[in-house]
């Protein structure tokens, strides 16, 4: 059967670190020369750490995330995951959460969760067990048989995150997952994500253009610049874990915010 897939056993030794080595990428342009979107990006995301890619629109942060996932194969350089395994395409050890929830509109919440599992080759009963687990974890009880059109924006994104968690990835790649949500829902989801991450500390690469979101969530913030997209600097967040919303009034938060804003300001004005 062409739709069946062997369930590939994952090696126990896999750690879940992500290494980008001299990654450069060009997009073909309709007219004229190809446009460079990433210039010589070298970045190591340690296993079990939470790293944010912060920058203005057009800095290539989403492209970099896609390169890490394998949805985009870079023109130059390469990415390796878990002790040097070269990324040649999407694999089940990495899961992506999209900005637009990207749920199948004809499948209910639980069917969407099981769908992700089915695609990577997990058997039906195991998919169901994992889906129920993720539904509890993301607070979706009572909504499992709702179609996406019957869910609020925040709920849809919960399902989007749950779908990624269902395949038990080592690396969670999140592309502005809260970008389309209203301010209040966004803050609730940030706290939820913190709680989730504290529980098992997967490696997370999180794309955002919100400075506060990056500070609240990350161990390290990768500040990116535009034209072409490149890494400007990497800033460590020295706030203690577990993080809470109340740290927004911390002295260190304010200092960090100031520092990041000064780094981003010239890029923002250029991009605007």
């Amino acid at each position, binding site marked *: 059967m*062409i*739709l069946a897939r062997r369930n590939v056993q994952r090696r126990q030794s896999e750690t879940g670190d992500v290494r980008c080595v001299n990654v450069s990428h060009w997009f073909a342009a309709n007219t004229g020369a190809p446009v460079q979107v990433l210039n010589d990006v070298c970045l190591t995301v340690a296993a079990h750490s939470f790293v944010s890619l912060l920058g203005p629109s057009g800095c290539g942060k989403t492209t970099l995330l896609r390169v890490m996932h394998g*949805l985009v194969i870079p023109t130059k350089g390469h990415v390796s995951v878990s002790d040097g395994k070269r990324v040649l395409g*999407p694999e*089940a050890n990495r899961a992506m959460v999209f900005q637009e929830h*990207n749920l199948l*509109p*004809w*499948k209910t919440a639980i069917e969407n969760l099981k769908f992700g599992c089915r695609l990577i080759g997990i058997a039906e009963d195991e998919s169901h067990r994992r889906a129920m687990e993720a539904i509890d974890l993301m607070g979706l009880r009572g909504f499992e048989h709702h179609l996406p059109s019957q869910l609020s924006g925040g709920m849809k994104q919960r399902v989007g995150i749950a779908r990624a968690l269902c395949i038990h990835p080592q690396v969670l790649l999140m592309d502005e997952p809260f970008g389309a949500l209203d301010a209040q829902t966004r803050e609730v989801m940030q706290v939820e994500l913190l709680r989730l991450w504290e529980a098992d500390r997967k490696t997370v690469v999180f794309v955002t253009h919100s400075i506060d979101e990056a500070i609240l969530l990350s161990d390290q913030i990768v500040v990116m610049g535009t034209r072409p997209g490149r890494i400007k600097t990497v800033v460590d967040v020295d706030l203690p874990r577990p993080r809470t919303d109340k740290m927004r009034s911390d002295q260190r938060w304010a200092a960090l915010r100031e520092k990041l804003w000064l780094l981003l300001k010239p890029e923002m004005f250029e991009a605007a």
Partner: protein
Amino acid sequence: MSIENVQLGAAEGEPFFRRSTWWSSGYALNTLSVIVFIATWQFVTSAGLVDPLFLSSPWAIAKVAYEQFFVTGEIYPNIVVSLTEAVIGFSLAIVFGVLLGLVMGHFERVRQVLDPFVMALYSTPSVALLPLFILWLGIGLWSKVLIVFLGGIFAILVNTIAGVRSVNHRLIETAEAFTATKAMVFFYIILPASVPYIVAGIRLAIGRVLISVFVAELYAATQGVGYLVMQAGATYNTPLMLMGILLFTITGMTLSQALSFVEERYLSRFRQH
């Protein structure tokens, strides 16, 4: 003023909903308008305001229908012939329209090769090809099946192609992010996402299929409801002619309603949101 003093419109008891009355529901108005129409028609004809040759009364049509169905039974062979043409031609149109549409929508190269021919045949009135098909297949069943097939297939084909091509690309990419193969993307994403377009194509095709059956039987036929209508017209049997036309009307409405039912009952979740 304290907040407790504020009264909302429906603070006590059950929330207030306007009761729907029998005359405000859609079905009642539908039925009423039809009854009024038929009554007016009956009045106009039985009062002798129009020549019965031009327009028979509903009662006269009902009488003819009763004779045709329950006394002489002459109508049945005609219905069987027309229905056979319609069922075979329509089924083939659905099967090939959907399959070819999926292939043409999915594979750019196939579409480029076949597009000129599809456009040409789509633009040609298929009944104009009837004389040619009679040369090929004779005046029996199969020349008419071919006309019905051609009459129905293009609405389905063109809609299916549009459905496949309009699939939300982000959903395809999401499946790919979850390591889906090309076959998985096709069967799990593209096919279900095309369902509303396919249904819309089939709905359009119903009318075209009925037109094709009717026109095919006007030309070189010996039986069929279309043939019956033409014969009745030629012999000034206006009630029989109108009854034949009414059979087409009822068939079209029934098929359309049946499709709506299937869509509502089984396919509603595939609709675009």
